[in-house]
């Protein structure tokens, strides 16, 4: 697969990834499975304030959000927020496993091996501890970066200086916060892009994988960042819709928030599939040409 292409240019790499997905739809399987798990989680959240799930979730929602959020339509107002909270453990313990499976599938296709999902799952399970630790490291790094950005943004917004660049920065921060978070997300994904492929392909432990990841990042980070950034733009409409969810509910119907979450999950299947196919393809290309 990747050996036939020379994906040093971002556009080539992107095209190569899309071609791989079209010619080998099996690559999509782990990402579809992640979406399936996420959709089950969304269903649970949707039914959380209702019988019989309210017996378990009712007191939790009441404790952290208040009684009103157990009732229609307020439960739908917090649905997206609850989904985001749940995404963190889901990513660490479930999504990371399937992403690693996807990487192994791409590696096997690249080596012209037949794909046996059971075997791929077993091989991935063997590396599960390292995958989970890597996912925790990445989640923490992303969280700290977002926090740092939040602190800096607050400092600028609270600044009383009304001269020079400060008022301009304030407008950019307020209007472009969604875009900045997206940008940070793509940068952090690129920074740790090779960790999963290294763990799965080289069968190394987490810390040597992180070290090796940074070496690869230095030599190919820029190309990969462009590919990740362009692919992530697919998700921009979802972010804009999510940011305006209250206005949308007011203009249409409360279930729109549920539809936005589902739309986001479906978009993520293709976005993640393209990104991780590109990362793995690029890593394999680097490996061959080292």
């Amino acid at each position: 697969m990747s050996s036939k292409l020379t994906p040093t240019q971002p556009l080539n790499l992107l095209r190569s990834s899309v071609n791989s997905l079209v010619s080998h739809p099996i690559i999509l399987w782990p990402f579809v499975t992640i979406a399936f798990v996420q959709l089950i989680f969304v269903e649970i959240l949707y039914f959380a304030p209702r019988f019989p799930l309210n017996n378990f979730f009712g007191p939790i929602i009441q404790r952290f959000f208040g009684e009103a959020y157990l009732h229609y339509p307020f439960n739908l107002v917090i649905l997206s927020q609850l989904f985001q909270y749940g995404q963190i453990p889901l990513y660490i313990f479930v999504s990371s496993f399937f992403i690693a499976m996807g990487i192994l599938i791409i590696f096997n296709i690249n080596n012209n091996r037949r794909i046996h999902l059971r075997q791929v799952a077993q091989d991935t399970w063997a590396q599960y501890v390292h995958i989970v630790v890597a996912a925790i490291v990445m989640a923490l790094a992303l969280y700290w970066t977002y926090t740092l950005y939040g602190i800096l943004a607050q400092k600028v917004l609270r600044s009383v200086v009304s001269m020079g660049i400060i008022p301009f920065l304030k407008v950019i921060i307020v209007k472009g916060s969604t875009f900045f978070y997206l940008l940070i997300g793509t940068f952090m994904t690129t920074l740790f892009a090779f960790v999963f492929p290294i763990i799965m392909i080289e069968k190394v432990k987490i810390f040597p994988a992180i070290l090796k990841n940074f070496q690869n990042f230095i030599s190919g980070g820029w190309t990969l960042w462009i590919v990740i950034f362009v692919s992530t733009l697919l998700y921009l409409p979802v972010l804009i819709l999510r940011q305006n969810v209250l206005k949308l509910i007011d203009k249409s119907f409360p279930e729109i928030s549920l539809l936005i979450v589902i739309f986001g999950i479906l978009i993520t299947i293709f976005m993640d599939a393209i990104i991780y196919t590109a990362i793995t393809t690029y890593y394999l290309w680097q490996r061959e040409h080292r």
Partner: protein
Amino acid sequence: MKSSVILDAIILMGIYGVLSLLDLNSDYVVERKLWHINRKFLDVAKDPKAVPPQTFEALANEYKRIIRQHSKSRAIAGVYVVLGRIYIMKGDLSQARDVLGEITKLYPDYRELSAEAISLIAKTYELENNWAKARELYQKIIQEYPRTETGLSTPLYMANYYQTQNDFRSTMKAYAQAIDFYQKLITEQEHSTVEFNSLRYLANCYVAQNRWMEAIETLKQILIDYPEPQYLTVQRAELIIKTINAIVVNQLKNSDIAADIYKEFMVKYPQHPLNKTLKVVLDRLKENKNPDSQEVSVQ
């Protein structure tokens, strides 16, 4: 791959179907149906005079259908109130009284709703210029539902009514009765929502009667005794501070009274988020500037 996606979809739809079936007649389902009808009601309520009678009737029928389908749901009690409001808007006051009268019979334990229903019935008599009957019902609310939101606001409402009628003697008498009512509740209901709301209404009564020092003392009591965020919200804090400032500057001509209250609050609650605003207000009071130009913030 295809079969896997189909299987996933079947499982998801299966879970959705089972959970929906398990919850077919719950309050949540009623709330959802009501939300959609309530939106139509809000549209109608924007300009009831421009709405044809058929629209009112169609809306009323939708509510009646929900009452029939989910008569056992807890959410239904509130539907009677909305239905009553629809008939009031339509001008069918007798029908409104019938519907609202059902609430006290069917849901005697729903005291807040019962008080609201009686208050709405009283309003229908007001619309018919039958104040004697309306007053009788307002008195009933005060006596039987004194601790409800409607019960608390009714004495002040009655005093305001007399004021709008330029009936000075009745206004003074109603304020005196309202003050007695709120003071009694304040003594009975220490540190509660009822006491907090009674203090707010009491301060209104004193302001309306130009009893400035008593108004200030009551507002001070609200600030000092209820600093918790669920009571002292940003809007309430802003209103209290502005009222105190307006009274001390315009009526009592002694801004030291306000300064003493704010200083006492800051000493008692040194970590309170309102202190930042109070410091600015204090500085402005010292400089004899307009202290209300500062936005209140308890963030």
